[in-house]
């Protein structure tokens, strides 16, 4: 195990996969000479050259198509889209092109590429650089969507995503890059599609992903001081969703709070809530509660932004309400 930052864990995974498989290439804005705005691609261009590590124009549609086309002819591109907010520019290529190829072409081609991007509020980046659009991509059959919370999962899931024969949307969080954690040595792979119980508990299940997992774990400590023993399920993958781990936890605790940093209405929490109703209704002692970002464009000013987006305190309050319901 080595202690490292989330950004370093991603960087290490990219270095290792590019060294292991010469088909892997990295493309995106600022990824080459500058090493990425969050330094995730640091050192790649120097080590692997400017053919395999390409700085691109600010042309998100074309770059998404570029990743699709290159994957179609045997490359394994890792595309960085600097902010998840810019994913809207990529949506035709992702939704109308990438997602349909395997199924509609009846298996004639696979598209092994990764679209890395980062979202989330908390940095004062305002309405066009702070969103969490998980639900938008998790809605689409044919895409895989992962959202690691820890450096170990960031590294292991990125390796799995690069080796996966399908398009994977890899959701990072801008406030996680500087968090630290232990990362296993060697060929560390975290399988896509497996959630895990980040904290065991008996009184309530809190389902979360990405940064919300860390906030849920902090909330669980506060709740523990009040005598509430919360279990935290870290999804790690949003699509395909590990329904089994969620259901197993809720059947044990009989209470469920789902947390997602995206907007509440039509958000990923709604999906989680429906899944729990379908899989564990008879075990519930009260209604599933969901917590998401307020249904407003994310405002800039600090008190407004803090009020809009869930944090540990909001999760703590929501957990208490869930148990009272």
């Amino acid at each position, binding site marked *: 195990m080595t202690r490292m930052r989330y950004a370093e864990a991603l960087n290490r995974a990219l270095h290792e996969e590019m060294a292991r498989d010469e088909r892997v*290439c990295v493309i995106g804005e600022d990824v080459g000479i500058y090493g990425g705005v969050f330094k995730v691609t640091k050192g790649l261009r120097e080590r692997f050259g400017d*053919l*395999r590590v*390409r700085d*691109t*124009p600010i*042309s998100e*549609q*074309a*770059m*998404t*198509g*570029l*990743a*699709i*086309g*290159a*994957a*179609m*002819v*045997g*490359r394994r*591109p890792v595309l960085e889209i600097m902010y998840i907010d810019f994913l809207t520019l990529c949506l*035709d*290529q992702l939704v*109308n*092109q990438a997602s*349909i*190829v*395997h*199924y*509609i*072409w*009846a*298996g*004639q*081609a*696979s*598209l*092994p590429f990764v679209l890395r991007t980062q979202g989330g509020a908390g940095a004062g980046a305002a309405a066009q650089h702070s969103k969490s659009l998980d639900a938008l991509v998790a809605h689409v*059959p*044919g895409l*895989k969507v992962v959202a690691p919370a820890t450096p170990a999962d960031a590294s292991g899931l990125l390796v799995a995503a690069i080796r996966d*024969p*399908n398009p994977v949307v890899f959701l990072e969080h801008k406030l996680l890059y500087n968090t630290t954690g232990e990362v296993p040595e060697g060929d560390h792979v975290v399988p896509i599609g497996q959630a895990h119980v980040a904290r065991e508990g008996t009184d309530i299940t809190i389902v979360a992903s990405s940064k919300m997992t860390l906030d849920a774990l902090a909330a669980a400590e506060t709740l523990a001081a009040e005598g509430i023993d919360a279990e935290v399920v870290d999804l790690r993958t949003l699509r*395909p969703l590990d329904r089994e781990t969620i259901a197993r936890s809720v059947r044990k605790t009989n209470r469920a709070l789902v947390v997602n940093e995206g907007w509440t209405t039509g958000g990923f929490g709604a999906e989680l809530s429906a899944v729990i109703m379908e899989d564990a209704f008879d075990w519930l002692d009260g209604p599933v509660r969901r917590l998401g970002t307020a249904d407003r464009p994310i405002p800039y000013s600090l008190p407004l932004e803090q009020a809009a987006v869930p944090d540990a305190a909001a999760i703590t309050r929501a957990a208490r309400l869930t148990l009272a319901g």
Partner: protein
Amino acid sequence: MRNAPSAEDIARMYRQMLVVRAVEEQLAVLHRQGKTRGPIHTCIGQEAAGIGATAPLEREDVVTSTHRGHAHFVGKGLDLRRVLAEIFGRVTGYCRGRGGHMLVASAADGLLGGNGIVGGGIPIALGQAFGFQLDGSRRVAVAIFGDGAAQEGTCHEAMNVAGLWKLPMVFFCEHNLYGLTVHARYQSSVPDLHVRAAGYGMPGVMVDGNDLLAVHGAMRDALDRARRGDGPTFVEAKTYRMTGFSTSDMGGYQPEEEMREWAARDPIARTRALLATMLDESSLEAVERAAAEEVEAAFAQAMADPFPDAAELDAPEYAVAEARP
């Protein structure tokens, strides 16, 4: 003419043009009889462009086509029976009936693939060309699109990147004067689209798109240039769509005089006249008979083929292993 096609080559392309024309005329009849599903987009009047652009390609070269791709499918060497089976939603179709006429794809033939999103295939061809450049191969990616798609952002983004990186790619624009139901004069800032190539660091060539040899020659030059590593070419083939946008088009916006003018430049009649200087009448008639028989047999077989079982809906969402052309 350098590497001028032989009489045999021209006869083969003439036969392909006849096949496309006969297929589309028959599809129109079947559409009126309610025997097709969804809109069908025909390229009647554009066959020289579609065949001239694809016939010079090698099998390992790849094409992204459009919603109006029948000529590209035939020119790239797809099996007509399987194309028609796809159009009729049969399990013997290239995509087992999952794609339909706009989404025909044949990985084995490098037809990757048809596309129902105007301009959607252009950045994918860009990525294919990027993959070929990384491979150091002599393969070329050809993006075929219309004058309508030339107004999409994807086209401009992809032209910039292809010119910048000198990718082995050809932008082949079938300028048929209409985007949807609207004449190009209401859609384009310039009447001749090839002039835009200069702004993207590549040569732009304009040809009479109803002159098979002119299209073929321009395409050969563009392919040679791409294979030499000199980068992309933009080829604009001036042609005309003798039918509506699709079978659901009510018409009424293409002036009769304009239709008459273009009918006089019919690419099939012109190719026949050219061939008549090389072959005797009985040889020409033999080609025509062979085309008609091929089409008749393909329709009979495709329409007798089985539909997919509804259970096939549950075919896997994801690829489990890499599959590529």
